[in-house]
């Protein structure tokens, strides 16, 4: 016949087993569930931001498209090489002794397009010395400004010698300084 002592031991054993079961199975499961809920909370907070992020992406996409369009429309091409020969071909006027008496193109050596070398762009100076009418000099400046690539007209000097001037179409001595801007590939610039 079991005594009170036996019942007490049995009850203690049962309680101990139940407590062990709770510690081994139940508590870790709840802890795991709590961790998962924490992660859910974090993800939900980010999802709540999704609308904002989506709006950001839409705004940025529009801004990028706008910038690209602006660059495409308003900016001129910056080639990888100066290609002075092709520029001279575009600018050269026929020397007809009436409108243009003489023209000389002199190219310089490449240098930084912005003083200080802050930009990767390079510039080759091209000097055009002309003996021509005002219209012809003006046409040369216009055509330098109208080419599809970036050419900077850095100076225009023209002078009319009155003694040499003809009455109908005075011939001016003009010097137009241009900068042919180009962006050499990075590895070429390093060399």
């Amino acid at each position, binding site marked *: 016949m*079991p005594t009170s002592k036996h*019942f007490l031991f*049995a*009850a203690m054993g*049962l*309680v101990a087993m139940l407590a062990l079961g*709770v510690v081994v*199975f*139940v508590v870790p*499961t*709840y802890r795991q*569930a709590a961790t*998962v*809920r924490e992660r859910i909370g974090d*993800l*939900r907070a*980010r*999802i709540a931001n*999704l609308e904002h*992020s989506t709006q*950001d*992406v839409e705004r*940025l*996409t529009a*801004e*990028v498209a706008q*910038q*690209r369009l602006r*660059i495409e429309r308003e*900016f*001129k091409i*910056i080639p990888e090489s100066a290609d002075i020969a092709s520029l001279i071909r575009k600018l050269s006027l026929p020397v007809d002794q009436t409108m243009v008496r003489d023209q000389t193109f002199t190219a310089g050596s490449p240098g930084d397009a*912005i*003083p*200080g070398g*802050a930009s*990767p*762009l390079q*510039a080759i100076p091209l000097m055009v010395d002309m003996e021509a*009418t*005002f219209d012809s000099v*003006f046409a040369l*400046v216009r055509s330098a*400004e109208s080419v599809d690539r970036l050419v*900077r*007209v*850095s*100076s*225009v*000097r*023209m*002078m*009319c010698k*009155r003694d040499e*001037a003809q*009455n*109908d*179409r*005075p011939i001016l001595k003009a010097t137009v300084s241009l900068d042919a*801007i180009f962006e050499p590939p990075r590895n070429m610039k390093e060399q």
Partner: protein
Amino acid sequence: MRMGQFIAAAAVGVLLFVALATHARFSLRAAEAELATVTVHADQVLATEAKAAELVRELNELRSFSEMYHQTALPLELSAVMATLVNALPESVTLDQLDLDASGRMVARSPRAKDVRATGDLPPRVLSGQISGFAASDQQIAELVSRLEATPPFRNVSLDFSRTRDVRKHLAREFRLSFKIDLETPYQVAKAGRQRSAALEEIANAH
């Protein structure tokens, strides 16, 4: 009797344990299922954030290119400046020299400007212009100065000198004037009232 009570208590204890364990398991499964659903949306968030970062990088590149382009290119065309100058000439004014130099930079000698230079910032670009010629009278030269002063972007228009000169046995006033144009602001050179071609014809025929 005592045995029956003990068995009942043990059964209740075991049942409570089973209920608790089952609840914990269900709770975990529900949380995991929810996490799976939320993760699908979260992937979208991560993709959106990555896309936003990529777009910001692209936009910064475009902006820096744009800034570099504006620092390199001139904000106005020299031909437009020439046309505006010629259009601004009063009737009797004839030019025999024109000098436009857009390669210069504003030279300031103030201590503040020196500080700016020390930081590596380049001084602002400026176009320096000088024209010389002759006119029938000083009034015509003054008229040219006033017209240029009133025409943006010309500024600091100053008459360097005006003196008598003999032009084909006629007395005329020879002059030289200078001006500056700030090249750090984008401009649209205003066309004066007269047509450029007419003015060009005039400069050509004046000789």
